[in-house]
């Protein structure tokens, strides 16, 4: 698969990574190269093969419906939760105003 700069820009936009035209021109052949290499998988006969879901046999465990059963995964920790926030006020994280 050959990736052109327009595709690179589209993918970068989806991934929310700002790129310049220069970046896009540099990345296009690079990504084409990598994608070309991984496309050798097309040749593998996988008819009737189920995609991997769990590498080691294991069952999804479900938790009991208990609030703050483990403090590490419970609530009521606003201060520590917001300790690293780049911007916050009145107990809220804040972001540039969004127009919906």
């Amino acid at each position, binding site marked *: 698969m050959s990736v052109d700069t327009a595709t690179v820009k589209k993918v970068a936009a989806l991934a929310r990574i700002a790129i310049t035209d220069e970046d896009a021109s540099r990345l296009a052949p690079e990504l084409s190269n990598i994608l070309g290499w991984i496309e050798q998988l097309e040749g593998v006969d996988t008819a009737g093969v189920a995609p991997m879901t769990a590498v080691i046999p294991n069952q999804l465990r479900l938790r009991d419906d*208990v*609030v703050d059963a483990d403090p590490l995964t*419970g609530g009521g920790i606003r201060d520590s939760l917001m300790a690293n926030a780049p911007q916050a006020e*009145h107990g809220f994280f*804040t972001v540039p*105003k969004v127009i*919906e």
Partner: protein
Amino acid sequence: MTESSYRIQGATGEWEVVIGLEVHAQVTSNAKLFSGAATAFGAEPNTQVSLVDAAMPGMLPVPNMECIRQAVRTGMAIDAEINRWSRFDRKNYFYADLPQGYQISQLYHPLVGEGAIEISPDDKNPDATKTIGVERIHVEQDAGKLMHDQHPTRSYVDLNRSGVALMEIVSRPDMRSPAEAGAYLRKLRAILRYVGSCDGNMEEGSMRADVNVSVRKPGDDLGTRTETKNVNSVRFVMAAIEYEAKRQVELIEDGGRVVQETRLFNVESGTTRSMRSKEDAHDYRYFPDPDLLPLELDEAFLAACRASLPELPDAKRKRYEALGISAYQADVLTAEVEAARWFDALLEAGAKPVAAANWTTSELFGALNRGGHDIAQSPVSPAQAAELLALVADGTLSGSLAKQVFEVMLETGDAPAKIVEDRGLKQTSDTGAIEAVIAEVIAKNPNQLAQYRGGKETLFGFFVGQTMKAMGGKANPAVVNDLLKKALS
């Protein structure tokens, strides 16, 4: 099965409206879907948020069994296929209310498959039903909340709702009118509340509908649909459909084309508009969440879910009808789970079904309405009501005395027998006393007597009224009738 005759009258003829609803219902649970933070409504911002919900580095989801159980029970309540093997997928997009940058949801293998809900679009005629298909129910995380009006240049992010469990209940595009959509939502809400899987509280956002609307000339293929997001009342859903259908018809008739897009409903104006912020979010790059294994349910789990289901509205309504209660009353009594449970308790306390249904739908509901109460706050318990109805049935109270007693019950919460006793409201069948009063009434009204005897038989009611009044409403009306007939003839 009824066919809707709802049509939009356009310049070029009649248009049919095709409606599908995706309802997001908050699962009733103490803790969130993938974390132990609480789900209670109305907490201070960001106080019910765990490291997991805020997507701190290295955090992982572990599913809450109760949320799975409730979704399975909901599926069973609409006779849906329950998938013993389902899987969580990530829906990837960037938004400030979505800390992980993806929503854990189910696309490829939902927990609940095909089911159906029977609706009665005309509440005057509950037996005229229509079946609305439900394509699937899947379980997913709710997003946080953004507030745009707190600061001139910033939006505020509250993650209290982030990670709360939702069921997304996706209907088939089987509805053809706002009334059908309204009936579907009401019925779905009733089922959820019967099951106990969602409190159905639309004001608090426990139930929101994404409304998919398209229009077509009857018989044509489906038109392009729009999706109006997060509409949070039955009335608004109906209004959004009406507006959106008319807008689409006008657009097409003016030579335009409907664009498949996400729209927003404006409560004040009753209109919809295109949502700019979601414009480019079309490529969600769904893939199985690698932090979670497939969800496999065993027979014991499913059996326990099934065994825990209560009697559902349709079954209850049919049971009431079989007891001789009218279809209309049975429908009214089963619409709300609390009312139905209250009524069941009334029957269990020994009340006769038909009399109990009459009394509940008129007296009790009327009183609650006037007082602005819902049934959960009813000042009168089913046992007290059964006692009151028993006093009517055994002739102790007349209908009008029963009303008086009920009024006192509402005020004081006292037992009816006590009220009857204290206030001397017992109905009398004492013929001697009644005859004495009748004699007095006749003596006081010679003109009316003459007219009556002269053939004006309608005056009989006048004498009944006078007698009852003189008896303070306590005379047995049947006895009064009998004795008056004799005295007047």
